[in-house]
């Protein structure tokens, strides 16, 4: 059976965090290389990690043809793109895939980042063939890989992706917050609506979007998911658009995934804190009776599924 090779080039959320206290897990913002055996090359997000990936791709001395999936356009997910050297080389070909925003389309979003006010080189100076593909929540196929996308709970339009290739499933959810942090999960039975006071049902109704997310992740061979916070930190940061590790672990258990990677590390967390989140996550999995492999994402880490 053919494999999917996943390499992490950037694992940090929000802002790069160079320095001795983050040297083991790494300080570059999100970028993941996904090579499908005998299939296409996908790049997930274009944080500062994409710069090193670009250098590596150039060393191969072959034309680069890749699909760059952008989960959304907060700085940490696009700030590496102007420094991605293969994009400046004629003969290479990139398809940038992501959601439009309400008032600007994908092409404009990426071009604006290279407006001369912000960056001295324009997107027109990128000599590679660069195409844009705007998507929403949909399913499509690229060179034998089935791609599914889903809007996440994060400010703006953030997408999660599920890739299926030769019976293997990879799910990438970089930035996501529990869908219902404020209420208990009891969903009333609307069929009983005539028997109860409507107002009471309405007041307690919480849309069960978490169920949709569980189905989206179900049976993945590898789930890469936001786990930025400790639970106590999350209580102070509800509506920031990120998850506490316990939510991420529970999602992995409910979705019955085979391996979990904790991603989008908090810029305030040093290596020791990430060690702790990893250990607590492994402990929670063990206690749940579903002790799958679980690691905190680390720059340079390679996983084959």
């Amino acid at each position, binding site marked *: 059976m053919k494999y999917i090779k996943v390499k992490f080039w950037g694992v940090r959320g929000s802002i790069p965090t160079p320095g001795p206290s983050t040297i083991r897990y790494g300080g570059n913002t999100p970028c993941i290389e996904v090579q499908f055996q005998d299939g296409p090359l996908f790049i997930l997000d274009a944080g500062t990690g994409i710069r090193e990936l670009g250098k590596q791709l150039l060393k191969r001395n072959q034309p680069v043809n890749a699909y760059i999936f952008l989960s959304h356009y907060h700085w940490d997910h696009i700030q590496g793109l102007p420094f991605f050297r293969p994009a400046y080389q004629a003969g290479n070909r990139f398809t940038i895939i992501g959601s439009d925003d*309400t008032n600007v389309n994908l092409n404009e979003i990426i071009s604006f980042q290279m407006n001369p006010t912000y960056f001295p080189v324009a997107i027109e100076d990128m000599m590679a063939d660069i195409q844009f593909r705007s998507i929403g*929540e949909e399913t499509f196929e690229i060179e034998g890989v089935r791609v599914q996308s889903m809007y996440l709970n994060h*400010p*703006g339009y953030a997408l999660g992706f599920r890739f299926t290739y030769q019976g293997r499933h990879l799910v990438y959810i970089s930035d996501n917050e529990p869908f219902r942090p404020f209420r208990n999960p009891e969903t009333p039975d*609307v069929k009983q*609506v005539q028997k109860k006071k409507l*107002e009471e049902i309405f*007041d307690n109704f919480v849309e069960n*979007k978490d169920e949709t997310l569980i189905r989206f992740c179900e049976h993945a061979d590898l789930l890469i998911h936001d786990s930025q916070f400790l639970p106590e930190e999350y209580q102070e940061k509800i*509506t920031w658009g990120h998850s506490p590790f316990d939510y991420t672990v529970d999602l992995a258990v409910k979705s019955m995934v085979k391996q979990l990677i904790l991603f989008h590390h908090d810029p305030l967390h040093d290596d020791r804190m990430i060690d702790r989140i990893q250990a607590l996550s492994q402990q929670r999995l063990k206690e749940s009776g579903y002790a799958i492999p679980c690691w905190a994402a680390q720059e340079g880490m390679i996983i084959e599924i």
Partner: protein
Amino acid sequence: MSQEKNYDILVIDDNLEQANLIKLLLEQYGFNAKYLTDSSKAFDMILKEKPRLVILDIMMPEVDGLRLCKMIKQHPDTANTRIIIYTGKNYESDRRKALALGADVFLTKPTRSYVLLDAIKNLLLPASDEIYQS
């Protein structure tokens, strides 16, 4: 409010239970409400049926609520439609965007029924009308 008045409200939400619940609630208070879970059909329906008020979810697979809001407000035949965004997305940036696009009210789920009903009352009824007469 008096029952003979016909205040058409269209609820657009991809979650069937949620959409139906809002419709039932509004009907209980005398509003004439419909719902639609397929947002790709929403704009055509709004153009054709011209509801006075639309309640829009944001995160929907076909056409999201903010894009619909923009389409409604930009089309001369529908620009006067009142819009309530009712979303599970509790983010200030989304609220600002919705209001900039012309939404009248931005409510986050879950909310209390009286909050939604008050918002509708403020948008549709003259100040003297009373919607809580049951």
